[in-house]
């Protein structure tokens, strides 16, 4: 499939737009010196990924991303930044430029490795088309509470442990 053919499908144009927004937002996250901007840009990138999940027909995963990531995780980051009287606005820790070139090299190498490894496993020049199909929330819930009930319980126990751990870590010691 040539690029012109690919881009003539309207869903691919939508994919291109969403992925460009996601890329710009994620680059902004790693280069900005403003912590609040970084958290908000992360929310934008996550919203883009939720849009991609909707395009792929994974509606429950998409709305879970919106609820858990954008609704809880990013808000948690913002609360954490504001409650701790951490220096808002500009990040006081500078980016060391002696470190950024090796890091960029590592990032490019990782990108090349992952891309070659994953795309070549589907054959060079072959187009593995994703069929239209919606995974219904009801079917997903059925699976989650039948086939995957033990991992589900394990993960809920992990969340409980994280909850207790977070409280224990963040509260002030009454003896002090």
């Amino acid at each position, binding site marked *: 499939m040539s690029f012109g053919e690919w881009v003539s499908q309207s869903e691919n144009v939508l994919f291109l737009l969403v992925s460009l927004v996601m890329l710009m937002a994620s680059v902004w996250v*790693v280069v900005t010196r403003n912590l609040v901007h970084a958290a908000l840009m*992360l929310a934008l990138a996550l919203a883009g990924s939720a849009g991609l*999940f909707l395009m792929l027909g994974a509606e429950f995963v998409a709305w*879970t991303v919106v609820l858990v990531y954008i609704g809880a995780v990013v808000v948690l980051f913002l609360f954490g930044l504001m409650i701790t009287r951490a220096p808002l606005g500009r990040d006081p820790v500078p980016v060391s430029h002696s470190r950024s070139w090796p890091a960029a090299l*590592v990032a*490019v190498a990782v990108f090349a490795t992952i891309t070659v490894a994953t795309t070549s496993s589907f054959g060079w020049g072959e*187009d593995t088309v994703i069929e239209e199909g919606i995974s219904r929330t009801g079917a997903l819930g059925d699976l989650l509470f039948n086939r995957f009930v033990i991992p589900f319980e394990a993960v809920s126990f*992990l969340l409980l442990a*994280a909850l207790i751990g977070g409280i224990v870590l963040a509260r002030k010691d009454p003896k002090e």
Partner: protein
Amino acid sequence: MIINQFLVLAALLFSVGIYGVLVRRNAVLVLLSIELMLMAVNINLVAFGSLLQDALRGGHIFALFVITVSAAEVGIGLAIVILVFRNRSSANVDELDLMKW
């Protein structure tokens, strides 16, 4: 839609996250970059799940598990960062060398 476009996008986002983890010295920004990497993994999982469309919906279910685990990780990680900031009034990961031998 073909599978390769999602794979390349996920690889790009993952490498951006790796760059952030390696370059940024603020612990909060390191956590944000880790979130970026987890998001890239989720894109791969959901794309494969929609490609295979197996009876168990493995890709979608595992994406849900990754989301849960990363929520737990952020909760604990942020609590640790807040604690460190309270004790040392700095969130620079380079200065946290107390346990370095």
